[in-house]
């Protein structure tokens, strides 16, 4: 229920921004950036104090084979990805390849880490401004929603607010532990 109410808040924000920013190129871009920033923290991420403040990403070395391999489609963080894996394209699963720019606006997935059994909030940022990478195409759709549920739709070219919207590849960043399971 908490998750849905926050979704509702996000959608309200999106709609408000949409109304106020359409037909204004620059403001629309600001709006995109805002939504991007907004999409990151305003989710059910654990924010307890102390060492919990920035929940560390779990240790992949505890995972055998593809589950712990960022260049594999079966990597645990890729449960809702749709695109070429940045780590096959000159980047890593948390950084974009040379010659690209990471989009601030993203879609969000929730993936369970098989090692600690916890659910993590994953931000799938697109890497933009270059040709298609063309390697390690990976499409998994856990929690993927249609285009009109924008923040959860992995079918969208999320290269927004970047210098160009040309799509190259995608990263998978741990934002934190999903409170629903912690």
């Amino acid at each position, binding site marked *: 229920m908490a998750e*849905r109410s926050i*979704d509702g808040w996000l*959608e309200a924000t*999106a*709609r408000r*921004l*949409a*109304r106020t*920013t*359409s*037909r204004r*190129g620059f403001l*629309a*871009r600001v*709006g*995109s950036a805002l*939504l991007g920033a907004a999409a990151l923290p305003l989710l059910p991420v654990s924010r307890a104090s102390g060492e919990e403040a920035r929940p560390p990403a779990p240790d992949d070395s505890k995972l055998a084979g593809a589950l712990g391999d960022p260049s594999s489609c079966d990597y645990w963080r890729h449960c809702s990805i*749709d695109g070429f894996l940045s780590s096959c394209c000159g980047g890593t699963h948390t950084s974009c390849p040379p010659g690209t720019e990471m989009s601030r*606006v993203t879609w969000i997935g929730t993936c369970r880490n098989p090692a600690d059994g916890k659910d993590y909030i994953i931000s799938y940022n697109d890497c933009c*401004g*270059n*040709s*298609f990478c063309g390697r390690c*195409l990976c*499409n*998994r*759709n*856990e*929690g*993927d*929603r*249609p*285009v*009109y*549920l*924008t*923040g959860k*739709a992995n*079918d*969208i*070219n999320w290269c*927004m607010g970047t*210098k*160009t*919207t*040309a*799509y190259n590849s995608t990263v998978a960043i741990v934002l934190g532990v999903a409170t629903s399971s912690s």
Partner: protein
Amino acid sequence: MRRLPRRLALAALVLASVGLTGAGEVAWESRTLPAEPGPHWIWVGDVLLRRAALVDADAGAFRGMVPGGVGIIAPTRSRDGREIYLPSTYYSRGTRGDRTDVVSILDATSLLPLGEVVIPPKRSEHTSWVAGSALSDDGRFLAVFNLTPATSLSIVDVVERRLVGEVDTPGCSLVYAAGPRRFLSLCADGTALAVTLDGSGQEASKVRSERFFDPVADPVTEKAVRRGDEWLFVSFEGYVHPVDVSGGSLRVGDPWSLLDDADREGAWRVGGMQPIALHGPSGELYALVHQGGVDTHKDPGTEVWVYDLARRARVRRVELRNPMASFAADQLGLAPGSLAARAVVLALDLVLPNRGVERIAVTQDPAPLLLTATGFPATLGVYDARGGTHLRDVKEVGIATSLLALP
């Protein structure tokens, strides 16, 4: 130097005249298409070749192609059939530099450009490309869906060839034709929004439907089909949600299921990038299905199930062949029908799981074809839509197929 142009002009006359006698059989003019596209023609978009090819599914041949830009393109035919409208996006330096979005206007028989209308550089790019743009039923206005992620529609007057404005659709996305000057969008709260334009293309009114689906528990996909005044939206769980757009307000019909208990028992599910198609004349709905769990709503399908919309009952099942085996033999350059080719196809059929196809389309003639496509590698299968028999594969259809669209 001053005499140069004259010398060139002179030479031009001489050479050109001789040239023509020499080239008796050459046709300098490119081929043109008939005013009416063939009943079994289909547009096959390609993300990498940046074009849509017009494929004759009977001959397995190309009839022509239209080039596009970055992203995926969907040609739309004018109501009088004379023009093709093509929303596309270009960068001044390929994937860098300044972005320009346009609606290209092409002659439907020569496929050459007649003009273009520059639109706001923010048209949506989404993988299915379904419902990215729509032409009003009166043929006057083309609406292009924008996503920045702020949502709106760019409205183009295709008769006067100019941008007439932009309509905000806060909280609502995508665009479907829904009347002479009306467009439909799907909203995040489970409703639909209808935007009606006035004669000049400005927003005249907006009406919202009642909430007709649950966006959290069982959202409908954007891959809808229209029959007359009714749009049919299919949910992740296989429920058909009818929306009647004939009246001033939007009338929502009772949902019905494409899957019975036995089907759900067997984990059958509708899925793909273009999983739904309609044969209007017979009122038959085609659904691409596979066996899979939750979150497989975009997985390719191995069967196509056919429904009689009048009876809301399944009337046929079509099992699809593994498209990869023959593709591989073809791409490896093995002569079709040759021993080597047959050997490879056999070997591959044995070892390859049938991953199915992602897109289907059905032609609208009395003897319809069912067309099945994979994205990458790109394949196009041709089936008898009624009998369900596989007729042929169209070779070398492209590199990375985007949208299938009837011409």
